[in-house]
């Protein structure tokens, strides 16, 4: 469905629905961001534009997207398309230590870089307590420098345009589910040379589980929590925020950061990056491992190659854990539908009736 900058303003930017994915930034000179807030500097006057086409929060045809990315309608309305769900982690202890949980994202990206499958990766850089920044990593060291969850909405897809400008291709994109959707929408844009090319340069999309991102005020909050201690890593459990520092761990109830949740995230229907090649999250179970959802053939091939090369190791997803994951995702989706209904406005969630019904019925799995 066509739209332009005016529609983007009305439907996304002015309604607080922007997720700061960063893809529209640098598409044109008129969209810029500061402190994870995307603004339109100038209305270009066009009725249709790529800013609207690629935005993950403009109306999206989910059934079409399922067909485009996976070649078939979805069978699972909670977790989306997937071939396999596993526990996985990096075998290299340095990578595992740098990354969140098992460090499997860093391991896969470094593996793809080393094997020449990609020439660079669109990532997010920044130490805990600092505002994260888009990063285009072209070496394993640069990948490791970006390891670890950031918890806020860095517009990291900006680095995708940087890659196109610098001629770094193909690239992997590691991003939040909204960013994955944005990249897929970019890849779906036809006929407009440059942006189409920027999309085609993406050889691998790694999605990160994300139930919400926090507004930039969180970073200052984190610094205040840590005081003079140096923050090493931040982690969230359903109940609390755990901050590991050089002076020992600090723990805060998750309620204290809820106020920082980006309003747009309350309407997110996709916490597990359903359109990624592989999606990675915590296990909520074993800190040394990640949950790895293999979604596409391409993702499957990468994981298989990484396993064969010994870059990662996997173990079966504990069957007794699956209902908890499904329940969490399902409840997030239902909440998103509720919030959207209560706002009573048109939304990016053009969720087909079948998708809704499948959710509201009893989860059969």
């Amino acid at each position, binding site marked *: 469905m066509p739209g332009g900058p005016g529609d983007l303003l009305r439907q996304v930017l002015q309604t607080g629905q922007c997720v700061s994915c960063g893809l529209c930034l640098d598409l044109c000179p008129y969209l810029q961001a500061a402190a994870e807030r995307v603004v*339109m500097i100038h209305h270009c006057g066009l009725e249709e534009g790529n800013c609207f086409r690629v935005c993950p929060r403009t109306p999206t045809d989910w059934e079409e997207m399922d067909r485009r990315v996976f070649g078939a309608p979805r069978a699972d309305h909670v977790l989306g398309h997937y071939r396999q769900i596993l526990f996985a982690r990096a075998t290299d202890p340095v990578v595992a230590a740098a990354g969140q949980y098992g460090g499997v994202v860093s391991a896969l990206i470094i593996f793809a870089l080393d094997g020449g499958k990609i020439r660079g990766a669109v990532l997010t850089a920044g130490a805990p307590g600092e505002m994260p920044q888009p990063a285009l990593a072209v070496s394993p060291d640069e990948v490791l420098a970006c390891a670890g969850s950031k918890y806020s909405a860095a517009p990291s897809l900006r680095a995708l345009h940087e890659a196109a400008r610098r001629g770094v291709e193909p690239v992997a994109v590691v991003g939040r589910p909204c960013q994955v959707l944005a990249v897929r929408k970019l890849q779906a844009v036809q006929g407009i040379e*440059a942006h189409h090319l920027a999309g085609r340069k993406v050889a691998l999309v790694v999605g990160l589980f994300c139930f919400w991102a926090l507004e930039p005020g969180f970073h200052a909050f984190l610094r205040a929590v840590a005081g003079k201690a140096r923050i090493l890593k931040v982690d969230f459990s359903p109940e609390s925020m755990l901050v590991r520092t050089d002076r020992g761990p600090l723990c805060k109830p998750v309620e204290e950061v809820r106020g920082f949740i980006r309003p747009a995230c309350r309407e997110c229907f996709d916490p597990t990056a359903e359109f990624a090649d592989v999606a990675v999250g915590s296990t909520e179970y074993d800190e040394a491992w990640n949950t790895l959802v293999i979604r596409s053939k391409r993702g499957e091939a990468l994981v298989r190659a990484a396993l064969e090369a010994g870059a990662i190791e996997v173990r079966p997803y504990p069957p007794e854990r699956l209902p908890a994951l499904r329940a969490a995702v399902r409840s997030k989706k239902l909440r998103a539908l509720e919030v959207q209904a209560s706002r009573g406005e048109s939304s990016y969630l053009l969720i087909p009736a079948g998708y809704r019904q499948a959710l509201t019925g009893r989860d059969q799995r």
Partner: protein
Amino acid sequence: MSASGVRLDDPGRSVLLTGNEAVARGALEAGIAYASSYPGSPSAEVLEVLAALAEERGFYAEWSVNEKVALEGAAAASLAGLRSICIMKADGLNVALDTLTALSASGTKGGLVVVVADDPGAHSSVKEEDSRYLGKVAHLVILEPADPQEARDMTVAAFGLAEQLRAPVMLRCVTRVCHASGNVVLGTLPPKPAGRPHIGCQERYITHVAYHRIQEERLAQAREIGEGWPFNAYQGPPEPEILVITAGPGYLYAREAVEVLGLEGRVGILKLGMSWPLPEKFLLRHLKSASKVLFVEEVEPFHEENVGYLVACHLEEVFPLALYGKKSGHVAGPKGPGLGEIDVDTVIRALAALAGIPYEAQPGDYGREARELVKKIPRRELGFCAGCPHRASFWALKTAIALDGREVVVLGDIGCYTLGAGRSGHYLMQTVHAMGSGVGMASGLGKLERLGFSQPVVALVGDSTFYHAAVPALINARYNQSRFLLVVLDNGTTAMTGHQPHPGSGVTALGKRVPALSMEEVAGAFGIPVTVHDPYDVKGAVEALYRLLRQDGVRVLVLRRAYALLTARQEKKPRVYVDPKRCLGDACGCHRFCSRVFGCPANTWDAALGRAKIDETVCTGCGVCATLCPQGAIVVEEVTRNGA
């Protein structure tokens, strides 16, 4: 601007000079010892010429920090017994007025001539002030030349008159005198200024209300002089039916109109060379003989009002007499009576109506044809020059304000950057008043917090304006603990009026190198934090603006980059071109950012190719567009000195 004709020591020779050059020539012939000015159109060239000749003629010339200081400097020379001239535009008179009204009361010694150039139609001004009213307020004699020859003649005469009256004399020029060229018969150049400047221990120049009487007596004396003064002249039949009272270039329009209409037998022209005080007896003599009077003057109905009052006082002598002009609506330019410039057509229409002659200034299809032709003229709007750093500064400011997200108030000021009130500056400026006004207003807005005003405030000021009038406002803001961001758009010169130097330039009007007085030093000395950034680095400038917008107190950001056209002349400019393979044309989505939105005149559109294009003859090679093109399609190629 050329000093070559002005400097000729060849009495009696006729030389083509502009009005401004003619004023300078008159000043030379009068033997000035001191000349001062703050540059302003349309009179900026007077001091430029004088400064170029100061060395060889042995007098002093300076670009002063503002008109008030300029006048005070010239007045000081006068008090020391020297002839001095001070040149300003109409707006400058407002700045100098306090001093001028006082000088008129205290009296002066050496001839002091104050040249005030009005800009009817405001070709290069923000308003079209008629400074004759202020001259009247100051109890000054006002002379009005009509052409370059008169500009020279009246300037010479003004010095004598000033010395005779022991008070400043005002020479009121308008754009069409300043910028017009005409033959000027040169007079004799005196030897270098004679006499030692001196103020005797018994001399006093005190401003006091007691001298109001002397001011009035002086005007009465001047009125008597005016009665027989050759510049107040009448030409026409002894008993004209219509009397045109005019001054300045209106006189030339009136003469042409009479000739065109063949009204030589019915219309007389009374030209006032001295617009104030009025030569009442001379006027009355001619008013009595006419039955209709037409006033031809720019901009306001100054003569119309003053002669109208004279007529009212002598009604019985002049009756029956009808007055026509702006008030009656007969003298009206395209914008209406009392608005903008007038021209020959204006006067022809008015005279034809009074004489009852049918006259069509634009016969037949002229109007329609003209409108058709006008359509073919490419539309040009006011905008910054190619490569102008202000364009980059305004884009950075627009970006930073959007990123800030709050309703930032942008206060403007006077200079090239005033164009930022229009499309060239994305309509960012919300106020434009007078030199330095934006800073004073920012100081005021910054104090409204306790009343609930929470919008961030940005004041924009140019470098020359900074020194001219922003400094007291800045002191006020610092003293009263206001809060705003002052952005100085520093291109290192007074660009609007022809790049004259200013205190930050490090060079004087005489071309002497002096230590530059930097804004950092000035504001820094007030304890105000100053950041300096290059506007050509748009991204960095945005970051600086964004950061500073979020700070408290008074802070200054100097966006510094030398005036583009000057540097383009001095340096080997890089070659900038569009790579047609990278530019996506209308498929880009930027909707022609470079040529349409950023709007540098060098960024054009190749319609045949459907791609952006750089006009290399206009481009200064700044490369800012290359940093902003979303496709990186603009290439900046450094050109080395040996031409590779």
